[in-house]
């Protein structure tokens, strides 16, 4: 078990966005966290990565309690993430976006950076080389000198993923990686996700689009902040509770 979430609860004022949520992510697998819009999926990501403090509960990553860690500390421990609305470093080029995300590996000391020492130059050369490689991996090498803000939506999504990969994560959290994409883009995005998994990265995907199910080894379904069910994709697909959550009562037959 790489990630374990126990009794996670988040109240926004009187509203419980997430309540008493338990689930886990097995090492090496792709786990889907699905549910209709407004189910609290993105909130779960923000709680895991420390963007918001949780009201109650515990998040354990690879044996370390990360419940009260800040976002940059969580990243340092090996959790990379993308964002649903996909904010980017808009005024950086694609390559600069990726290399700016190489903050952690390798990291140079402030003095090394400031005095442009051999260590720093070596690290920078390595970062450039690796950034190019990642841009090729996700299929962005033909637009690598474009400003991120000028890219079409699908490319921006890929860039978000490339950026997360640059942190060299052990666990990658993808927030709606195929939302708003056309079928071709979905195809290549799914391929990229699969490729990333094959390189040994554990993945947790938040998605409301059921198309993502084919990719998952395990699925956790939540609705209104509660877990409805979890299991294999084919089990979940036929689950009455899930159909009810997605389509309402009258469709469950």
């Amino acid at each position: 078990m790489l990630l374990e979430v126990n009794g996670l609860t988040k109240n926004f004022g009187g509203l419980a966005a997430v309540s008493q949520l338990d689930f886990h992510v097995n090492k090496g697998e792709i786990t889907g966290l699905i549910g209709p819009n407004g189910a609290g999926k993105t909130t779960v990501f923000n709680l895991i990565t420390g963007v918001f403090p949780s009201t109650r509960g515990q998040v354990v990553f690879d044996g370390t309690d990360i419940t009260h860690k800040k976002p940059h500390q969580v990243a340092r421990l090996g959790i990379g993430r993308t964002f649903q609305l996909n904010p980017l470093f808009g005024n950086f080029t694609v390559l600069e976006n990726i290399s700016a995300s190489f903050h952690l590996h390798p990291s140079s000391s402030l003095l090394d950076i400031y005095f442009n020492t051999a260590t720093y130059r070596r690290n920078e050369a390595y970062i450039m080389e690796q950034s190019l490689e990642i841009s090729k991996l996700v299929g962005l090498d033909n637009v690598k000198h474009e400003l991120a803000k000028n890219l079409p939506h699908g490319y921006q999504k890929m860039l978000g993923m490339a950026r997360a990969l640059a942190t060299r994560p052990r666990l990658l959290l993808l927030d709606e990686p195929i939302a708003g994409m056309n079928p071709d883009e979905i195809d290549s995005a799914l391929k990229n996700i699969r490729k990333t998994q094959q390189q040994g990265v554990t993945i947790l995907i938040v998605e409301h689009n059921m198309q993502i199910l084919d990719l998952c080894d395990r699925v956790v379904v939540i609705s209104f902040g509660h877990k409805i069910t979890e299991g294999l994709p084919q089990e979940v697909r036929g689950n009455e509770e899930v159909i009810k959550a997605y389509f309402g009562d009258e469709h469950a037959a």
Partner: protein
Amino acid sequence: MDMSDKQLSDMTPSKTATVQEKWIKLAITAGVVVLIALLPLLLTSPYMLHIFILTFIYTIAAVSLRTILTSGQFPLGHGAFMGIGAYSSAMIAKWLGWSPWLTIPVAALVTMGIGMLIGYPFARLRTLYYAMGSLFFGMGIIYIFYAGGSLTGGYSGLTGIPPLLPIGTSKVPYYYLFLGLALVSLLALYRFEFSRIGINLKAIAQSHLVASSVGINEGWYRILAVGVGCFFVGLAGAGYAHYTTVLSGNNFSFMATLWLVMYVLIGGKDSFAGPIIGTFILVLIPEFFRDLKIYTPFISAAILLIVVFIMPQGLVSLPKLVRSWFTEHRKGRRITHAS
């Protein structure tokens, strides 16, 4: 790990063009520096030398303000931090008898320390809230200068500050001293911005959410930017104190901060050279049209409006703009010739 040439050329599509551009920029910079260094040979009026010395000091202050700006924070108390540098250096030198050569770097460190200390709680504030927070902090500092009694000279100001060079020294040595200080400071700030530290700051400014998700410690980097910016504005302030040898809280009021902001905006906030150009234009122009001096705020506002409408990237983008006008014009002529 060495990169192959192929990868290098991969990264810079028009490598030769950018290298050429870099040399042109370097040549222009060197030319301007030499010109300014030779200026005292032509310019014998002590008053004009005095104006240039002030320009050098304000250049450091304006560029250091922009350093904080690159991290996405909008400081409106920067003039007051210049005052902290000035007053602390002046007071240590005057009341403890230390040499100004020692108190100036000490005062810069003091300013940096106070800036970082204040930066810690302020790192939680963003945008307008940060601006207002720093504004009122700056105003508070000015009142401390006024309320300091005989220690700070109160409302009548601090006088009898030990000068940097022996009394009776002409303006020329001061001119070269402050030119040197400005060059060293600008070089240090340039290096800061165009290293990975600067990249991280610009990343935070564009999206703090993304920046922290890739492991950049947002709070620490923002405090670092404030610390470095305050160090250099403190240095400028301390130099100012031992050059003019008199200080008043007025020198560092909110108006002083606004002028620094003006230098940055008119010159161009997105470019390192922007605030340098902005400071030279706004400090020197009123001196050449002395009769118009009382209208300086109006003229500056007019320049700002013109800049915002015609050159949103500031005066620094003027050459590029002229070049594009020129090529447009030539293109137009060629078409009329052809018809």
